[in-house]
Structures are given as C-alpha cells and as structure tokens.
C-alpha cells in the first residue's frame, strides 16, 4: 500500500495511531498491553513498527527516554489505562526534568465511562499535568491524527519534554476518515522559537571582551541543540575554559586542554574554585541547578553572568543574570561567533592550573594497590578498555554515577546517559535497553548500583527476549552507598536502612540466560570487560567493590561551592580500614 492511497480513507482510531507514528518516523515502541489499549495492540499487526514488550511500564518510559537521549529522536512508550498509566509516572517525571523528548500513549476507559470510577480508570492527564510538557485526552477517532502530530511537535521542539496522549477505548475502535494533510498541528499559543534582540547580543559581547577570568558552564542544552562544534570554536577562539554539568558531559571533549571537568556537588575542587573566582560566567544550556551552585548567596559573587537558554522561565530563576540570551543555543552562538575576539587568557588558565594543587595526589587512581577493589578503579578500567569505540555508558543514580562522571572521560555527546534532575534509581537498565535499540551498533554499558539494579531488574527478561547485546556492570557494595555516605558525614554513621542483603547477581543473571560473572579483584576487571565485549550476547558482571567508600570531593547540600569535603590526602584508605 503506498502512502498516496492511504491519504484519505476510513480507518479505525487504532490504525490511525500506528499510521501517524510511522509517519512521524517511529520505528520502535516500548510497551505493555492491557484492556483499554487492546484495540491499538490489535491494529499493531498491520504496522512496520517493532514493539518491544517490557516487564513494567516504568521500564517502557525509561527505555523511550534512553532511546531519545541516545539518538536525539522522540522515544515512544505505550501502556494501558489505570495502573499501566500510573506506572509510567516516574519515567515521565524523569524525562521532564532532563528535557527528554518522549511521547507516552495510554489507553483510557470508554468515553462514556469516564468519571464513573470504572475498572482501571485513572485520570492520567490530571495525574501527569505537572510532569508533562503537555498532555491530551482523546475521545474521538477523528482527533487521533492531529493530536499525535501535535504531541511529536511539542515533544521535540523548543525545550524538549514528555507528552502524554490518553486515548479512550472507543476512540481507538471507532472509524473516521483519515487525512494526514488536514491534521496539521494547531498550536496558536506555542512559541518554541524565541531569539534574542541585537542589543542583548552587544551587551553579551561587551561582557565577554572585558572579562579577564571567564568560564563557560556547559550544560545538556549543548547536546540537545547540537552545538558541540560552536561551543568548541567559541571556547578556543576566546580562550575560555569549560566546566560541565553532569548532563553536559560529552558536550565538550574531556581531553581538550580547555576542559576543566564536572562542576558542582561532586565536581573537582579546582573546577568549583575556578567558578568562584571567575569574573564572568557563560551559562550555555544549563539551569543553575542547586547541585551545581551550592549556596546561592555565595555563588560566583564576583562574576557577571550571561545565560544562553531556550526556556525563558529559566532566566533569573535561581541565579540573577546580567544578560539573558533566550533562544536556541546553536543559533545564538552562530550569531555571536563572528564577533568574538581572540583574547590571550593564559594568565587565567595558568592560575587555574595552580588551583589543581594536590588533587592528583588525592586521586583514588594514584593510591597504592591495597588489594581492595574500588568502584573508581572499575570505572576507570572500563573507560580505558572502551574509550576508542562507539560506547554509550548508561548509569543509575548514586555513588557509582558520580564516580562514572569523575573517572569515565567522555569525548562525544550522547556517550553518557544518566538521570540528573530527578535522580531516578532504577533508570539505568531500562534506559540502557532503549539506548541499544536506538543505536544497535554501539557498545552499551549499563553501570548500576546494587540498589538501583533491583528496582527494575525485571527488564533483564526484555534484554533476553529482544536478543539485545547490553553489558551490565553492577557496582555492588552491599549498601545504598550515597545515602550511607550522607549518614556517614551528617548523621553520625547511623546507617539506618542502608545495608542491603543481596542475592547472588551472577546466579540471577544466569537464571535469565545471561552470561554472568563476579569480580572481586582489580586484576580481574580488564579481562572481565574484554570477555564481555567479545561475547555475542548480553553479559552481567557483578563487581564486589569496597563497602564503605566515599565520593570525594563533596559540597554539602546548602554549603558554598568552595567549601568542599576533600578526600584526606594522607590517609589513603577509607573508613572501612580505620
């Protein structure tokens, strides 16, 4: 059947749904069937779209999210009404806070039953109102096409985000004439394409040219906007060093001489000191999250601030800025670049080098081998083994996430996928599946703690059923490590509810039919990674690491950015050895 022949014909809402998804370029959806979405599943057989059956709807949303972040394309998740839809809530909120474009399709009870507390009825558009960029309730087949087109347009344009489309069962079942051309989006109030005015550009350039100690704060917006080359050119031409947010890692090459590394709560000390001593901050597609600013009262108090940001609501939200440039980062930098003067800032760069001080001595990589296996060793060795390939590391949330950010050096965008804003434990495994589906040629490594892994481990079955080559590195310390660390620092080592009694993860992996191994010594790390990469199917490695290791440095919540808890430079072992 050619495209022309289906332009105008009578179709069910369910068939229109798949037809529109195909026309939006969708090749994969992640979903779980149920009563209210059954008409859509019945119509799936006529579609070219590949449906991936998940084990829990939260997994479907994280997979769609991982798919979107790995590829830049909209990820799609499908679920039924009621519990199917509410299970998506965590994944939707995760995508919302990290500006990830996903479209969630949920079935809804028949339109006549709405409001009657029918079986598996939930007001999911009401529930997800504050955690979606926009959402829709569709009650007629004739509304399906336009709604899907609008949903994709809203999800991917401007500052991307999740859009939920709730479709009643009768809207899926009834028929209407399908006309793609006539179903154009009608969004008179939606303005994703703002741009700064001339005067704001001039003010920004004046600040840049007068600055002696500038620093670029590189965020997720660079990757979303595809502005990597522009940022690099800008930094090189103006001689400005670059500090990155967690979600910005990969936006600027780690090996670049102007790269400082990650800023914020677990950023390197010299990065935070640089920010505190700067006279100009250039915020590129970042939002001054509390995890990167610390105490706002003392944050970069001598610096002027230029904020290039696509979302006007982010301007002056946390940090008051001198010049806001509201627009797409890539376009704004294109405007700025021809006017940026080349300035020698070697004095400033040299002083930053001095700020590094004894950081190398404190680095866990330089500690003598004590026979203990540290998470940082695992991640650094993983980086050495996989750095040359097309590797995507997908992390969960907690200590291992911060070690990954510190010890895995990201050179390319979309090589790190992690839940930053919401900090969703259980994100890594399903998001890694989504990343692998989006980029089958890439070497996907799920790096996950023993706590977060157990939140969504049911998706191991999805990996096996879909025959996906996903590598899983469990950083297993027998604790909810980051919470334990806070208890160590701020709650007098009262380890309430943080020790974990775990199953044998290698046996668990084997039970799913996944090749699995356990590593307890540093010498086994590299061989295990090599053997995992050589194996044809998925591999699970259970790294039994030091139980009470600590992520250093650390800015305590609410403390000033320069007040960091540092790794003791003399005491080379950690709390467990005292």
């Amino acid at each position, binding site marked *: 059947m050619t495209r022309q022949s289906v332009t105008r014909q009578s179709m069910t809402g369910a068939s229109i749904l798949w037809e529109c998804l195909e026309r939006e370029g969708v090749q994969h959806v992640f979903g779980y069937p149920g009563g209210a979405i059954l008409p859509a599943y019945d119509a799936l057989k006529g579609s070219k779209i590949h449906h991936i059956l998940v084990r829990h709807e939260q997994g479907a949303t994280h997979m769609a999210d991982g798919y979107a972040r790995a590829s830049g394309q909209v990820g799609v998740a499908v679920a039924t009404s009621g519990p199917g839809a509410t299970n998506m809530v965590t994944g939707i909120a995760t995508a919302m806070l990290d500006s990830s474009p996903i479209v969630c399709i949920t079935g809804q009870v028949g339109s006549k039953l709405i409001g009657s507390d029918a079986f598996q009825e939930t007001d999911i*558009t*009401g529930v997800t*109102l*504050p955690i979606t*960029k*926009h959402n829709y*309730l569709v009650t007629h087949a004739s509304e399906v096409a336009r709604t899907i*087109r609008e949903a994709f*347009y*809203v999800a991917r*344009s401007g500052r991307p985000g999740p859009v939920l489309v709730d479709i009643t069962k009768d809207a899926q079942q009834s028929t209407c004439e399908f006309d793609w051309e006539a179903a*154009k*989006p*009608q*969004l*008179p*109030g*939606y*303005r*994703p*394409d*703002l*741009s*700064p*005015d001339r005067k704001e550009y001039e003010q920004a350039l004046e600040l840049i040219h007068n600055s002696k100690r500038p620093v670029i704060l590189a965020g997720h917006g660079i990757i979303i906007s595809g502005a990597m080359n522009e940022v690099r050119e800008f930094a090189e031409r103006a001689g400005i060093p670059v500090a990155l947010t967690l979600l910005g890692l990969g936006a600027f090459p780690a090996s670049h001489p102007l790269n400082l590394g990650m800023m914020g709560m677990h950023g390197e000390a010299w990065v935070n000191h640089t920010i505190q001593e700067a006279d100009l901050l250039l915020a590129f597609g970042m939002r001054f999250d509390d995890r990167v600013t610390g105490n706002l009262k003392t944050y970069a108090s001598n610096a002027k601030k230029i904020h290039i940001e696509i*979302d*006007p*609501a982010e*301007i*002056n*939200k946390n940090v*008051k800025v001198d010049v*806001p440039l*509201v627009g797409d980062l890539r376009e704004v930098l294109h405007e700025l670049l021809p006017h940026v003067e080349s300035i020698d800032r070697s004095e400033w760069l040299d002083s930053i080098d001095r700020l590094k001080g004894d950081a190398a001595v404190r680095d866990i990589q330089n500690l003598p081998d004590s026979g203990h296996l540290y998470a940082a060793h695992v991640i650094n060795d993983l980086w050495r083994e996989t750095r040359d390939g097309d590797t995507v590391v997908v992390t969960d949330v907690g200590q291992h996430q911060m070690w990954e950010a510190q010890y895995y050096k990201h050179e390319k965008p979309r090589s790190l996928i992690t839940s930053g804003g919401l900090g969703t434990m259980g994100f890594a495994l399903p998001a890694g599946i989504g990343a692998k589906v989006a980029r089958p040629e890439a070497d996907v490594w799920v790096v996950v703690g023993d706590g977060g892994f157990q939140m969504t481990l049911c998706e191991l079955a999805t990996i096996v059923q879909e025959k996906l080559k996903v590598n899983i590195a469990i950083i297993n310390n027998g604790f909810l490590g980051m919470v334990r660390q806070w208890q160590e620092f701020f709650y007098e080592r009262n380890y309430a509810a943080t020790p974990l009694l775990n199953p044998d993860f290698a046996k668990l992996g084997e039970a799913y039919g996944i090749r699995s191994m356990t590593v307890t010594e540093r010498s086994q790390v590299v061989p295990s990674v090599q053997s995992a990469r050589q194996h044809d199917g998925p591999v699970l490695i259970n790294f039994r690491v030091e139980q009470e290791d600590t992520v250093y440095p650390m800015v305590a919540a609410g403390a000033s950015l320069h007040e960091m808890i540092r790794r003791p430079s003399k005491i080379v072992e950690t709390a467990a050895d005292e």
Partner: protein
Amino acid sequence: MLNTYVVYVENKPGVLTRVASLFRRRAFNIDSLTVGRTEKPEVSRMTITVDADQDQARRIEANLYKLVNVLLVENITNQPAIVRDLAMIKVAATHEARSHVLELASVFRARVVDVAPESLTIEITGAEDKIDGLLEVLRPYGVLEMVRTGIVAMRRGKSSSTVSTATTTDQDVAEEDVSHSV
C-alpha cells in the same frame, strides 16, 4: 506587590486547571482569578492577580507562556487600566434600618436588587477598595451573605489586548518572529 495579568487562553477543557496548577506548583499565591468568554468563541480571557515581586512577576509570565494553551499574557500592573470587582451583599434591614441602608447604597452608587421583609440585597460594581468601603459601613447592620466575583481588568484608551487565533501549522510557528521580554 499585587500584579495584575490579562491572560488569553484557548477555550478548551482543562485549561483553567493547567493555569491554576501552575501557580500551585511554582508556589505563587493567587489573590484572584476570573475567567470568562471573549468576543471570539475559541478564546477565553482570564484576569489574575498575584502577590509577587518584580522577578517573580517576570517568571510567572514566562511560566504562563510555557503552557501550550496560553495565547497571550500581559502584565498590566503599571498601566492605566479599569479594574472592576462585583459584589452582592445581603444586609439585615428591618423597618428602622432600611432607610439608612438605602442611603448608604446610594452614596456608593450601589443598586438594590432584592427587597425582602427582613433584608436588602445590594449590588455594587467598582474597584476593590470601594466595595471594601461599602462592606465596612454595612457591617453594623448585619451582613447576612456576600459574594464577590474577583476582579476583571482592561487597559484604558488605545492599548488593547487582542489575540489572533488564525490556524497555525508547525511551519507557521517556526516562521513566526516572536520575542518577549523575560
């Protein structure tokens, strides 16, 4: 200070919830919110007053614009505008008090809209402080019941808040050159 916004929204189900939810979620306190039809059936108009400082006021505007169904936001706080509230006040008015109450109503240019043996109902339209004033002087007689609409506002003279709702396609949206202060 109190900021007054005129907000045009698409007349669709759930839009009022989206606007109200935004204020709750971002921890802004609504002082008054009214909504009604406009000369265009597909557009509703809201008048919202919020207690906010200057920075907050700008963020409220930017956040309102983030709602896909919001067409136009204008902060008219510092502009010449007609601001009106409407109240109906039911006052206990027995034989001897009745003439006093009627006199007060006429001083405030309020109208009596219902007369009963034991009470009078007075309708008054005006700025909020005028209504507060009438309420204050009626209190000694016994206010039995009162209802207020919340304020509606319109700028004076030539400046008009209008909104175009021509069907917009994604291409049109992309080409539209829109810039608003933040």
